[in-house]
């Protein structure tokens, strides 16, 4: 993943979250469930897009920092701010996803403030990350000392350096993370295979709503695999950032994650009752979802072998 990709993508999480908060605010003033649903869905998409932003940043760090134009210290400070921001973004996306899932199960969308508060807090962390990132290439930011604030305590243990040390200095961490990654893989694949299979005409006696109830297990497994995946990348970045197979895996993951959001929040799948066929759009989405998850597993499994 090139450094330029990082510059192209890096505004997406913050702008996406800001737009989501605007939609949620509008939904309160207009009492519109559709606007709120759109805001929550945008939170999920922003969280998903944060993954390639973070990973392209790691790639840029590996490629450029320590060179004549990129200070290793400034890049490290930016990375140390990015990691808590990534965690906060994933939690915000998780809150939004849960609200969307519950809205289908309960029949109404709640108007609680949790997701909005999480999004606002994440925006603060993203702004801090962006300021430190700006200091890398903007001399006026670095000169004003804006990228040089002291590290608060939360960053110390969640810094990339501390996590990398934890991975490389404790021999049990990598195998344990791999095992959890594989368990997460089959929990996730089993649930999405069953749910998408229903839309494709298998299990026709089962209403989609019954399989929709299992989606939180897929979401939890997704979160587990993002967390363990981040440990791999932080522990051994050079294995991943220059590897085109990994780039394809993340691209497939974007499609697969979006399809999981579709299964969770859209009416087409939800309305598929027992003994009824799914709408044509839902069937296309189901096939794409299965293909995307197979792609995630294929490119992940092929990482040591495929030189693209």
């Amino acid at each position, binding site marked *: 993943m090139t450094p330029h990709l990082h510059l192209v993508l890096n505004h997406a999480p913050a702008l996406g979250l800001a737009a989501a908060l605007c939609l949620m605010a509008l939904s309160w003033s207009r009492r519109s469930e559709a606007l709120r649903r759109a805001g929550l869905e945008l939170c999920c998409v922003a969280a998903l897009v944060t993954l390639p932003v973070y990973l392209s940043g790691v790639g840029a760090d590996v490629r450029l920092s320590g060179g004549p134009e990129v200070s290793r210290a400034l890049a490290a400070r930016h990375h140390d701010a990015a990691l808590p921001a990534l965690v906060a973004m994933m939690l915000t996306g998780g809150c939004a996803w849960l609200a969307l899932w519950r809205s289908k199960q309960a029949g109404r969308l709640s108007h609680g403030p949790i997701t909005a508060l999480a999004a606002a807090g994440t925006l603060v962390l993203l702004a801090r990350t962006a300021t430190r990132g700006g200091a890398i290439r903007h001399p006026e930011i670095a000169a004003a000392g804006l990228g040089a604030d002291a590290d608060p305590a939360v960053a110390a243990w969640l810094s990339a350096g501390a996590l990398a040390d934890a991975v490389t200095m404790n021999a049990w961490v990598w*195998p344990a993370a791999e095992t959890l990654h594989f368990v997460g893989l*089959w929990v996730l694949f*089993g649930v999405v295979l069953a749910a998408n299979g229903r839309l494709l005409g298998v299990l026709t006696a089962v209403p989609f709503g019954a399989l929709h109830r299992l989606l939180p297990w897929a979401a939890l497994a997704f979160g587990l695999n993002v967390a363990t995946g981040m440990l791999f990348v932080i522990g051994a970045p050079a294995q991943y950032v220059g590897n085109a197979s990994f780039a394809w895996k993340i691209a497939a993951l974007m499609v697969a994650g979006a399809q999981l959001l579709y299964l969770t929040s859209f009416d087409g799948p939800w309305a598929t009752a027992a003994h009824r066929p799914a709408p044509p759009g839902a069937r296309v989405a189901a096939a794409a979802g299965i293909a995307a998850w197979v792609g995630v597993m294929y490119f992940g499994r092929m990482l040591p072998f495929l030189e693209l």
Partner: protein
Amino acid sequence: MGLLAGLEQSAFLVWIREGGSLFGYPSILFTHTLGLGAVAGLSTVVALRMLGLTDAAPRALLRLFPAIWIAFAATALSGAILLLADASAKLANPVFTVKLTSIALAIAGVRRMRGRLMADTGVPAAGRDRLLALAVVLLWIAATTAGRLMAYLGPAGGPGRAS
């Protein structure tokens, strides 16, 4: 053991192990991963039903079992090829015995789950059914753990080592 050593050196298995083709070892490994994902994943969906976490009609879930058995066949076949390509190292690895035992018990549990689904009388999940479901999931976790740890524990072997 002599037969296995001979098989290990057969042209096909030498090609799998050392040929360097993407259609060899990497594809067998991917088939194994995909099959494991489907077997353990779909049987976990059934287990979640038996744990009462979804209200899908139990007999309706019987339609999942052909896919589970086909996926298991693909996993077993790819696993057999991976074993034969590196039999001397894998058979000497005690972790491999743990893996095979866990898989055998998990499959027995999955067959028992199918029997319970077929016998379903509409009564909510009984305690014994929940224990069976939990046991199957834990056995798949054990098999996955042993499968991963084989790359780190036991005698050094062929291409599967700690990738």
